[in-house]
């Protein structure tokens, strides 16, 4: 394979990965920052960085995890660069109302808002577990935490969601 062919093949493989994973990356970035413009900027920037270091991806089966790590780092960089402040939650919810909307499904819309209002430290592991299918050990590796800390955060995340949604808490029977 000559150099031009190699370059074309590399671009083709990268484009395929991007097309396949971009929806999940966008959703992940959105739930990290709760801002669609930020999500799009972060993903765009992350994909550019990924393209530059694409040769470093040893196995394409690990592309999702590799890209999520890049998105996460890029999000942290954006956060630092723009010195984003925690905005008023009601204003955030109002600003992203059409993304959170769930036509004719009040429970779904209610859950989206509850997730939106969840603290970052609880929301991120929950997104990684439920949406990305990560194990608690993988979440711990991704977030640089002990597995026990991840379990605690996930437990609290669900407890808060139940509380927020007014779901009946069952008393312990023994």
């Amino acid at each position, binding site marked *: 394979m000559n150099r031009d062919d190699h370059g074309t093949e590399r671009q083709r493989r990268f484009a395929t990965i991007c097309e396949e994973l971009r929806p999940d990356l966008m*959703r992940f970035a959105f739930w990290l920052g709760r801002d*669609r413009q930020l999500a*799009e900027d972060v993903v765009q920037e992350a994909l550019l960085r990924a393209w530059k270091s694409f040769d470093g991806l040893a196995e394409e089966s690990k592309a999702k995890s590799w890209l999520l790590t890049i998105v996460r780092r890029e999000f942290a960089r954006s956060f630092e660069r723009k010195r984003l402040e925690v905005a008023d939650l009601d204003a955030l919810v109002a600003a992203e109302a059409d993304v959170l909307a769930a036509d004719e*499904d*009040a429970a*779904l819309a209610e859950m*989206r808002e509850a997730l939106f209002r969840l603290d970052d430290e609880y929301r991120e592991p929950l997104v990684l577990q439920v*949406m990305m299918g990560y194990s608690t050990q993988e979440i711990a590796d991704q977030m640089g935490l002990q597995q026990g800390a991840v379990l605690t955060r996930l437990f609290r995340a669900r407890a808060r969601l139940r509380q927020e949604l007014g*779901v009946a808490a069952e008393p312990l*029977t023994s």
Partner: protein
Amino acid sequence: MNCLEFRRRVGAEPAVSGDAIDSHRSQCPACARHQDELRAMDALIGRALAVDVPRLGRTGAAVPPAAPKLPRARWLAMAASIMIGFAVGAALWLGSPRPSLAREVIGHVVHEPGTMMLTAAIAPEALAAVLDPDRTKLRAGIGDVTYAKRCVFDGHVVPHLVVRMPQGPVTVLLLRHRNVSEPVRLSEQEYVGVVLPAPHGSIAIVGHDQKDLDGIAQQVFDAVDWGN
């Protein structure tokens, strides 16, 4: 494993299984139900997180400029593989056994038998707190509402009421997400009930060995104001 350990574990990982978990589930119906509820809630969380990506998009820009457009043939191949994927997925989904609505409703009631024994009417505000998120109301005169909570059922949060009628207490589940084309009869253990088509989804009414179930169900149905 005791109840506390079980609930800590499943609270962090509702999908978890294993000998200790399975053993505790078989011995403790309340904890088994708790885990089922958390699994149902996770289904709802999963649907909630899957926000519409086109809504997220601003400019339509997708991949970095360096990445070339795929040739038409490649697109067609990808589209075909996606369609095949959908077809296989749909076939698997349609072919997989789904617990019947009757079993789900009765299962929910069976796990909370104590709620049917309550006799004191709850405060109107407590009832409103359960019904308002669904823009639903219960007209006065039907009987005392002795229990009202929002429960996770089939991956959705639904109002769960117990209404004390002259004929006895009945459990009422307002299932906006679940459509039925005709009444579905329920009868299991000592419970009987019916799920009726409603203006929005359906309504399940379950009693304890009720004689005039149809009459009771009609009264409850007429008492629900489903809003818009």
